[in-house]
């Protein structure tokens, strides 16, 4: 993105280096409401997560997760209602299955398991929102930056200049 925000540093007090960034997809009925409760209860947790509200965790397209990693997220958290409690009856089961599949794909891409987390957090569990985010920040600190954009550049560099264009074409040919 262009604009003045580009000069904004990544997390962490200036000069102390890298801090993880989490994109969190919360369903509006349970986990987002729980995050609100954490707020009204004035619970404290680290400021590394950015919440995107969806109506149901079942709305979380695997592409959203991949996009978040590709754009610089170090972790993605998906929060939905407990099994059996989905406001839409069974959207969370769909999420569960999708996340299981997505994990395999992410593994292939070299994205460690701990970077994608799925949690069932009911509307009354404000404490769990704070706990899960705190835990996840610790996990990501241990894993270090994902830096997928930089990694991709490195992968591209590994492939000698000139062959970069040929490889996708060959791969595409192989698929068909």
């Amino acid at each position, binding site marked *: 993105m262009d604009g003045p925000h580009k000069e904004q540093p*990544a997390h962490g007090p200036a000069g102390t280096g890298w801090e993880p960034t989490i994109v969190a997809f919360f369903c509006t009925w349970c986990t987002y409401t729980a995050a609100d409760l954490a707020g009204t209860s004035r619970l404290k947790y680290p*400021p590394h997560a950015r919440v*995107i509200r969806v109506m149901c965790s079942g709305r979380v397209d695997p592409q959203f997760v991949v996009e978040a990693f590709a754009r*610089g997220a170090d972790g993605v958290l998906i929060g939905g209602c407990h099994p059996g409690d989905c406001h839409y009856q069974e959207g969370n089961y769909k999420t569960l299955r999708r996340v299981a599949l997505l994990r395999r794909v992410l593994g292939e891409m070299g994205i460690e398991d701990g970077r994608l987390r799925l949690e069932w957090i009911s509307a009354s569990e404000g404490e769990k929102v704070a706990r899960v985010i705190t835990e996840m920040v610790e996990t990501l600190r241990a894993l270090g930056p994902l830096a997928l954009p930089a990694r991709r550049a490195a992968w591209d560099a590994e492939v000698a200049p000139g062959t970069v264009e040929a490889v996708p074409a060959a791969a595409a040919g192989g698929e068909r």
Partner: protein
Amino acid sequence: MRLETQTGNGAPRIGVYVCHCGTNIAGMVDVKALTAYAATLPGVAVAREYKYMCSDPGQALIRSDIAEHRLNRVVVAACSPLLHEHTFRGAVEAAGLNPYYFQMVSIRELDSWVHTDPAEATRKAKDLVRAAVQRVILHKPLETRSVPVNPNVLVVGGGIAGIHAALTMANAGKHVYLVEREPTIGGHMAKFDKTFPTLDCAACILTPKMTAVGTHPNITLWTYSEVEKVEGYVGNYRVTVKRHPRYIIEDLCVGCQECIEACVYKEARVPDEFNLGLGKRKPIYLPFPQAVPLLVVIDPETCIEFKSGKCKKTCVEACGERGAIDFTQRERTEEIEVGAIILATGFKTFDARRIPYYGYGVYKNVYTALEVERLINAAGPTGGEVVLRDGRKPERVGIIHCVGSRDEHYNIYCSRVCCMFSIKLAHLIRERTGAEVYNFYIDIRTPGKGFEEFYRRVLEEGVHFIRGKVAQVSDWATSPEEEGKLIIQVEDTLAGMIRRIPVDMVVLSGALEPQADAEAVRRLFNISCSTEGWFLERHPKLAPVSTFTDGIFLAGACQGPKDIPDSVAQAGAAAAEALALVDAGRIALEPNTAYVVADDCSGCKTCIPLCPYRAIAFNGQTAKAEITEALCKGCGVCVAACPSGAIRQHLFEDAEIFAEIAGVLAAQA
């Protein structure tokens, strides 16, 4: 003419409004820096901060800016959208803009209230505002649909809350279905003798209301019945009710009770539920003399005809030509359609056996408060005599407060009514028996109208109050005066000493707990529970009777411990909310439904089995999926699954969410 028709397709002109919320936000987030930052974002025409955006002047600011700066998009950074999205959409709409050209950012619940570092909190707020600005550019004007509302209402639970809610709505001319699982309505209140602090006779104030329910032309009363299934949505619920067999034809029984008299069981032998087993009933019985409906019930577990098929059936003989007894009755189900539902399923009392050192179930003279209530009640098993199980009048009685409440091992919360009913029982026991009465309490909590006065009165009557949590109730005598007594061991924290107090009767004032099946009921009606298991209201202050499921309201103790006046007040409020809903005739639904872009649909049918509401169908002629908007509730499960991206969701378009992701991560790129 609406503004978007002039500017909707033009360049975005976004207004960003940052709320201070007093110091709630401004105390942690640098709102000036945030506003200045927002002003630099692409598409933003104006950015302002204001002390209280939700206030009238705050909203007026947005409205005047929309006109003056020809804004076509609005972003408000304030509290949770669950709290005020509706408010700001209204302000946007009032200025002539489509209300969905709006995005709200929570920088209070999700930011200022949960973080401690102002620089970090401000940075996060900037990320969130940037995401909203990038997203709102892609918003489209949407129309809310409206559906007709069925004017009938269902009340679940026939305690005082359910009774009051049902009567209120029935008196307003609505047809009410009242479903109660016990054979009679009345709930816990019907078991009480007197009510605190006025010492009104419970039956004298309750039974006229019960009768009014039973005879009201607008109330269909189904006792001995349970809700089995709930389908549909606000304004249009389809409810299946299971009606247990009473083995009595309701229309034919007149409540004369001759059958009970004639039962081959000459003596009542079965422990009677209404008197908590302190009295006995026959297999054919009336729960209590003032039961509504006044219909007998046959308990197939103990009735000889059901057990052996060889009973003389003297009851049938006694019923004679009326022929109301029908041993062949089966369970039935009824289906009803209602616009709103009020849950008034109440509470259960704490099982005192869970605290073994208080000796309930071990020592026969340890009672629960509700049992003592039945002993005191003139219609109870002893005709109002407070006597021990061996018939003796107690000379010393110990009442233990907070049994199972304010205790991290059982329930951490205060049960709210136990101080007062303990004080009331102390007064009534003293009045009936002249006994020395000791109350053992942690704190006395008497914050209701007339409560403190009542407490003082009972103090002056000579009831003893000992501050301290009781450690143990036992019969281990260590001195002659303790022989044959129950000994209450307690640390008297005011006197600063350990005491042993011998008594004849121990009364345990138990906690109020959620019903044992509250979890199942919660799932049935698709609502939430608090950590303790009480049904969760939409907002603890501003929406205390609504739930997160539109059209379902809460009344009485199913939401948390309450006394009778509070239950009645809340039932009235729930009835008013339900009336406001069904009386409106139509209700607007959120437009966040899914839709199919037919050109992109490959007809793969992936989406069809995913939809929990069967809103998606396959059109054989066009070989494409079709969504019935009226059935779609907008979860978006199909949207995420569509392999060709042909299903989209209003307000949660892929492009909008991608823009949000890009927005929150822009600082990382």
